[in-house]
């Protein structure tokens, strides 16, 4: 049977404002319960919300980054329901007129380029959370998170596999950090996804969807979707029917379980919040934000492809703004411009070294200028790749600039033809058997001879140069 999977994602990105979206309380993570709560967050009688413009500014930034439409006038509405973590008995959100509509994100799945169109992105406040058994046998409410600004980003049902969904989530995660609107910390819940999943036989209309809530890692997202697709296909295959419902992913058992069905769906009684005026976003404000935007990953990725590097390398480089900037700064500082090789070094050895130390590129102990000089030393044949890696390790460990390390460790490659010719002559004289084998057509013998020369130069011979001289000699 030919099944098609249809996935749409809703992502809640917590915005990086210092204070909450409608009060002056701090949004810092990890404070002890109920210490970052103002009278407004507590919904004391008579308190009123005042919109944090920083949250709107970040929504505009997002809208510009995804090429969406910024509404000149958007409105806040109340979503009414009762729960102890929702102090007002309603959540202030946007329903009819979100700040951003449309736009989309380029994604790369394997070597294929794709595009995920967005429906909308709207501002809302987060709820608090319940703490069970913090006091034995009782439930408590921590309102530190209540009122934290969120941007809810909703895609069209445009993804066709778990891999595409993960690629989108990663691209979005990278983008919101790139433009500085969200710290992307998934453990702390700053970036969490809900997935809407349905399946259909190819050519059929859309199937009934299930929503899987609160997926806070890319791996869970992938696993949850894969499980859900399997479940739905089997269900329909057995003659059953998918019921529209909200499901929770259980990471321990790797399965989704029903949370509430559509029959229990609440009537949220949305209506415009009379305590807040509509948000007018003037074109000048949008322009101001546009001028403050960094170069975007998609534009850089296209630039990088223009240097001739593989889509894989270009995508890796634009994974984070810090990495892309490290690459750009290094490239600008090189004397011998070889962007493709430089990209390999940034994505390869440099990334690996930082990973080992749990650092990102912003905190790199190696400055782009020094990294560029190291790369130049490879390009001008001062260093072999192997030696260059050793130098980079030393640089990362804080042992100084590359030239000093090269001198101190004596890693300079021997490219001087006089010295190498001498070594080649000696090797040929000492290994007549290998010379004979080579002349008899055994290419392996040639590599063995190179090895002999390298051994004689203690590994510092420039391998290309050694090969060249050897071939010359053997041909004569």
């Amino acid at each position, binding site marked *: 049977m030919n099944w098609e999977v249809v996935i749409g994602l809703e992502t809640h990105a917590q915005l990086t404002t210092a204070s909450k979206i409608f009060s002056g309380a701090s949004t810092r993570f990890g404070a002890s319960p109920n210490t970052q709560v103002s009278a407004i967050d507590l919904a004391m*009688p*008579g308190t009123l919300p*005042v919109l944090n413009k920083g949250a709107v500014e970040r929504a505009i930034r997002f809208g510009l980054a995804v090429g969406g439409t910024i509404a000149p006038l958007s409105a806040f509405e109340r979503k*009414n329901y*009762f729960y*102890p973590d929702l*102090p007002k*008995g309603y959540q202030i959100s946007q329903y009819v007129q979100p700040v951003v509509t449309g736009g989309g994100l380029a994604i790369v799945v394997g070597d294929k380029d794709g595009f995920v169109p967005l429906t909308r992105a709207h501002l809302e406040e987060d709820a608090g959370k319940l703490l069970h058994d913090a006091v034995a046998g009782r439930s408590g409410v921590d309102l530190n998170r209540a009122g934290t600004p969120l941007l809810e980003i909703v895609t069209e049902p445009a993804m066709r596999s778990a891999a595409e969904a993960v690629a989108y989530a990663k691209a979005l995660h990278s983008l919101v950090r790139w433009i500085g609107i969200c710290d992307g910390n998934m453990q702390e819940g700053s970036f969490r996804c809900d997935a809407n999943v349905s399946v259909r036989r190819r050519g059929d209309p859309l199937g009934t969807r299930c929503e899987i809530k609160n997926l806070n890692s890319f791996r869970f997202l992938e696993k949850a979707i894969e499980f859900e697709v399997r479940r739905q296909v089997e269900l329909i295959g057995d003659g059953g029917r998918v019921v529209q419902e909200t499901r929770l992913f259980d990471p321990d058992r790797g399965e989704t379980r029903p949370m509430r069905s559509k029959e229990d769906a609440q009537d949220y*009684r949305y209506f415009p919040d009379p*305590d807040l005026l509509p948000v007018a976003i003037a074109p000048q404000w949008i322009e101001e934000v546009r001028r403050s935007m960094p170069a975007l990953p998609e534009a850089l990725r296209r630039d990088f492809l223009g240097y001739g590097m593989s889509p894989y390398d270009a995508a890796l480089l634009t994974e984070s703004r810090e990495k892309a900037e490290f690459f750009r700064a290094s490239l600008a500082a090189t004397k011998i411009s070889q962007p493709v090789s430089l990209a390999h070094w940034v994505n390869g050895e440099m990334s690996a070294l930082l990973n080992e130390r749990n650092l990102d590129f912003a905190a790199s102990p190696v400055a782009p200028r020094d990294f560029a000089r190291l790369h130049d030393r490879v390009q001008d044949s001062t260093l072999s790749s192997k030696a260059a890696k050793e130098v980079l390790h030393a640089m990362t460990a804080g042992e100084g600039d590359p030239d000093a390390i090269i001198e101190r460790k004596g890693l300079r490659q021997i490219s001087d033809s006089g010295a190498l010719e001498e070594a080649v002559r000696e090797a040929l004289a000492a290994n007549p058997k290998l010379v004979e084998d080579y002349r008899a057509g055994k290419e392996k013998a040639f590599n063995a001879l190179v090895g002999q020369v390298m051994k004689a130069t203690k590994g510092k011979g420039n391998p290309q140069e050694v090969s060249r001289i050897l071939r010359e000699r053997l041909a004569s």
Partner: protein
Amino acid sequence: MHNATLTELSRRLHAKEVSSVEVAGYFLERIRAASTQLNAFITVDEEKTLAQARVADARIAQGGAHRLAGIPIAHKDLFCAKGWRTTCGSKILENFVAPYDAHVIERFNAAGAVILGKTNMDEFAMGSSNENSYFGPVKNPWDTRAVPGGSSGGSAAAVASRIAPAATGTDTGGSIRQPASFTGVSGLRPTYGRVSRYGMVAFASSLDQAGALAKSAEDLAMMLDVMAGFDARDSTCMERPKDDYVGGLARGVKGLRIGVPREYFSKDLARDVGEPILAAIDAYRRQGAAVVEVSLPNQHLSVPAYYVLAPAEASSNLARYDGVRYGHRAAEYGDLLDMYCKTRAQGFGAEAKRRILIGTYVLSHGYYDAYYLKAQQIRRLIARDFSEAFKACDVIMGPAAPCVAYDIGAKITDCVQMYLDDLYTIPINLAGLPGMSIPCGFGDRARPVGLQIVGNYWSEALMLSVAHAYQQATDWHTRMPAAFA
């Protein structure tokens, strides 16, 4: 002393003929004496009041104090005042002590005024008779068998009986003007956005506006001068300079164009109310004002539209009283849902429940367009009616209520009739306009009648001068109930 205007009290205090402690003590004594007759106050705290009066005396002694310094003011019990119980007339907030001051309280405190106490009101400001208070009904000082009007009934009764020099109130659908009319005092509801709503317990956010009740337009001008002003904590408060309300009082009414809507004098208006109103308008004519007929063709739609919009907002505004963080919580309950249900069933009175249910219904999926959206459209029509009318006139005059105060219990079983009685006040709230009621005579059983003056947006200074001109030429506003003389 109890008949002294705010101007007169202020003069005596600043001349040190009397101290704030003495003035406060005098009114506290009057409140105590009248408490069983009127039930006008929910909370009186002599210690707090006198402590504030002592501070005021020190400020006056230093010189340069504000003209309201040392004057005790009663506050409707929905203005949060730090350390004071703020009940909103409800069991659900019976023991709620506000941890902060409302903007209005801050302004009075900054001026050095003294909090005299918290006045009784219909629960959550829902009602027109003050019979919906958890703390019992307020009585009308003119005739204690009668209601004082509502929802600011306690404030109105306190000023009418001269147990408070002046009081704050709020007006969502007529809650200042109608009780002012029923008790023969002057009441002002300013333009929506003139006074910050911060710290004022919300009923219907897009209609609520704080104002004042006092013995005269002149006193109201002094009150508004303190209350008005921009406050960034209320997004609907307008960033707009206040006018010179006191300085502009004497401008007179020569050339003033008074609009009288032809729809106002229909069969709905009792004769004993209509006659004093027409006489008052005549008095203006004699002072040089011109009377023009105007029309408010959509006026009849305002009551139904209001009783969709106000409950809709209220149903959401009152959701926070859930027993989780403060206020009443049921003593015994099973699960969470049971806690919510019992807490709210016990905490809210019948009228609050009725409006929560109506509001929840009109916002529900499938009904929203037919009710809420339609009512919002009507609201625009009503505002347009007024802007058309104000092309031909400067103020609009008419009754504040279709009848004089009725007896306690007379209408409480017929809530629709009580809603319909709001027909003269509600359109002003829907349009966001300022309105006043000033005493202009007496109707059946010698119960007071109020003249409503409606101004264009932000025209409080003009309205106050128009009311003042009438009060210079007549003495209705100086009459007080004999039982409290």
